[in-house]
């Protein structure tokens, strides 16, 4: 192990490590083989980080896996070469490639929770690769894994390895996975959206750890993400992909300051969407002194919010802060233990079972994942038509016409009326879910992270749609999100939640420009900025803010 570490220090920065030339990968579709990565060339030197960005379906992950000489089932290499350290991986035997993977090329997947085996302790999985290849004795492997845990700033590096995956948080698991990738001191690591599933405040820490470890070990890295601000912190150079083709390739500085292609510029534009703040209006929904429990756990503590008609109130906070619980209390899914929820001045029963149909109709929920919120066995007609027949008794032609109108409102073509959800894209599904909510003609929409699962460009479209609908129909949104860019784009007022309580609330500009609570400061400072030097300042500020909270 020691000689191995010495070797990693001897590595020369700047030596060519990975050279992909004219790579084309095809996938089997309903009409034969279709190229999903088209004629892509890239090169990577030791100690260099190349960022790959693009929306989903751009071929980012496929390209990342190709660096390991691997394709997903149903795909194959149809042209080009992947040269790693002088050898073309595509011409090597599968056995030889397997030996390289894990030892010299490692992969960090998006969802650490899905990549760890829940039945084994972290340490066993972390050193598995070293043990399997016989690179070190067990004691030495455990020792070096513990060092890595410490470098990744995991709490209690000595003992955390004895825990099972479900006993650590998502951010810790993601860091453990990076540590696992590092155990064999690989020359190249492919990071496939390693922080996408994390909270902003956790993301900062994971990013910092990854950058530190990559720098210390002179490891080359491919960093795949759809978040431009994140890649700006990590990469020396950035490649933009779309539909499997290269759009633009430049150094990070140049890419951020003067992107050449319109597509690249449109990616940049998403974060600049901003809703002008509107004047206050009469209150339509009021939540006063609400408490809620899950068993003995107090999930909401004395929450009071006033939501004005025709405005958007954004509720922000990290996961576990009680944002979604608040939505469940307002909708009646989780009866509150104390306090009151009133709509139009009328107090609502705590449980949805005691509310009238009309009261239920006036509050509509839209969920984060349209995949689980739309019944996969119903067509769009069934999905959107049901509230119409249920609340308004619309049937036959009248119902059909109204469904077509609603789809038109959410900018979907009427040919989707007979589609099942599986036949639609992520953005289209979310539009159907929005159309279903509009169908009930509610007073208040509760939007629970509805753009979090979408690509940035699609996010922007959905946010614009919501803004237009608000303008046309004077609808009210209670918008739950963890993303500050989304808050800027849609909110009039902001409520910041932390550990089941409200730490700050008020008009958007006031909260965003002068965050007077340390948690709000932390949250705001954790949002990645386009500035490449942001990460360093964020870590500093974050530490200070954290100390203040504690």
């Amino acid at each position, binding site marked *: 192990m020691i000689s191995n570490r010495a070797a990693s220090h001897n590595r020369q920065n700047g030596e060519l490590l990975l050279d992909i030339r004219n790579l084309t990968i095809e996938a089997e579709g309903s009409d034969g083989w279709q190229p999903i990565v088209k004629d892509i060339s890239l090169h990577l030197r030791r100690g260099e980080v190349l960022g790959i960005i693009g929306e989903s379906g751009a071929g980012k992950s496929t390209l990342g896996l190709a660096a390991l000489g691997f394709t997903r089932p149903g795909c194959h290499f149809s042209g080009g070469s992947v040269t790693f350290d002088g050898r073309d991986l595509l011409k090597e035997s599968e056995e030889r490639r397997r030996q390289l993977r894990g030892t010299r090329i490692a992969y960090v997947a998006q969802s650490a929770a899905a990549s760890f085996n829940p039945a084994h302790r972290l340490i066993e999985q972390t050193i598995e690769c070293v043990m399997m290849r016989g690179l070190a004795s067990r004691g030495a492997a455990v020792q070096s894994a513990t060092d890595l845990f410490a470098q990744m700033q995991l709490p209690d590096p000595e003992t955390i390895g004895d825990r099972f995956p479900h006993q650590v948080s998502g951010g810790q698991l993601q860091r453990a996975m990076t540590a696992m990738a590092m155990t064999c001191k690989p020359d190249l690591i492919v990071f496939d959206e390693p922080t996408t599933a994390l909270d902003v405040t956790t993301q900062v820490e994971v990013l910092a750890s990854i950058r530190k470890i990559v720098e210390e070990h002179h490891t080359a890295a491919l960093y795949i993400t759809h978040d431009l601000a994140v890649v700006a912190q990590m990469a020396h150079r950035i490649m933009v992909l779309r539909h499997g083709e290269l759009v633009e390739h430049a150094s990070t500085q140049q890419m951020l300051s003067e992107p050449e292609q319109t597509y690249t510029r449109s990616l940049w534009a998403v974060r600049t969407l901003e809703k002008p703040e509107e004047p206050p209006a009469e209150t339509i929904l009021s939540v006063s002194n609400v408490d809620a429990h899950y068993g003995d756990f107090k999930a909401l503590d004395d929450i009071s919010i006033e939501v004005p008609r025709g405005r958007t109130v954004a509720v922000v906070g990290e996961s576990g802060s009680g944002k979604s619980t608040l939505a469940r209390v307002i909708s009646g899914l989780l009866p509150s233990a104390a306090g009151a929820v009133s709509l139009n001045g009328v107090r609502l029963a705590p449980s949805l079972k005691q509310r009238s149909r009309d009261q239920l109709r006036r509050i509509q929920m839209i969920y984060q994942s349209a995949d689980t919120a739309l*019944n996969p*066995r119903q067509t769009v007609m069934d999905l959107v038509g*049901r509230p119409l027949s249920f609340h308004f008794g619309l049937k036959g032609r009248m119902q*059909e016409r109204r469904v077509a109108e609603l789809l038109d409102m959410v*900018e*979907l073509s*009427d*040919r989707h009326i007979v589609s099942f959800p599986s036949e639609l894209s992520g953005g289209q599904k979310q539009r159907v879910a929005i159309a279903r909510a509009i169908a009930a003609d509610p007073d208040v929409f509760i939007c629970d992270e509805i753009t979090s699962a979408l690509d940035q460009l699609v996010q922007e479209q959905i946010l614009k749609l919501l803004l237009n609908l608000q303008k046309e129909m004077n609808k009210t949104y209670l918008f739950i999100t963890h993303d500050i860019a989304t808050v800027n784009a849609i909110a009039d007022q902001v409520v910041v939640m932390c550990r089941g309580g409200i730490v700050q609330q008020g008009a958007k500009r006031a909260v965003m420009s002068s965050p007077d609570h340390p948690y709000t400061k932390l949250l705001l400072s954790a949002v990645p900025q386009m500035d490449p030097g942001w990460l360093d300042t964020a870590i500093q500020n974050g530490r200070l803010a954290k100390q203040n909270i504690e």
Partner: protein
Amino acid sequence: MRPSDTNLPARAVRYRRSRTGLVWAGLRRASLTTWLGLCVILLYAILALFAPLIAPYGEADVVSSQPFAAWNSTFLFGTDQLGRDVMSRIIYGARNSVGIAFITTTIAFLLGGTLGILSAISPSWLDHVLSGVADMLMAIPQLIFALILLALFGSSIPSIVMIIAVLNSTQIFRLARSSARNVAVMEFIEVASLRGERTLWIIVREILPNIMPTLIAEFGLRFCFVFLTISALSFLGLGIQPPSADWGTMVRESATFISYGNITPLLPAAAIALLTVSINFVVDWFLDIASGLRDDQ
């Protein structure tokens, strides 16, 4: 996002998708084995429904003075130990064996499926009670339990059907309960209850379509098991009573033939095997098109 036809198009818009349309689309993609399976099942159904019209002789008629006659032009597959026409008995057997197994499986599904879904969405005490009863029934070896019950209630066809249906419904209950539970936690169920839908509507329109593929696959397998249970009971003399023709009984009665190189006893056995394989072909195909709805395209 929008196509260019902003002013609503002149072409007729298709609003609803019919179930039969889906099945036709599925049939067009069906493989050869599926068609084979479908044809065999159809053939069995026709035989079972129109047995009296198709069979050359009656089910229990002794038509020949010669028992165990060889295959000949009058009695295509020869005669059995009493001089009854084997071919006619095989045709009637479709009615008894297949018909009874089918009715039994259907009742088992109605019972187990309904209770399973109910158990998945009802308060925990009811779930506990129902699951407890199912566990108790499953703990007793099925065949022995069936024998006891048959001894108690007498081995008439209705009691065979009911007893085997109840015993098999426990496994269907378990399956329906666990798959309905997975669906019941989905957000679209929450959406339906937020709309104020009744429980029955939620079960029929939201849950059932999602667990149907699993249940139908189980139906194919369960049918084969029920079939075998009935045959086993017949073998023990407690199943379908003579003179009714039953494939299981027929195999047993003429089993000794096989040592003389006569393949007659293999015919009812082959009838059972062919049906089992065909059902599984069709179930495979059905699962294919049902999951296709969700995954690809």
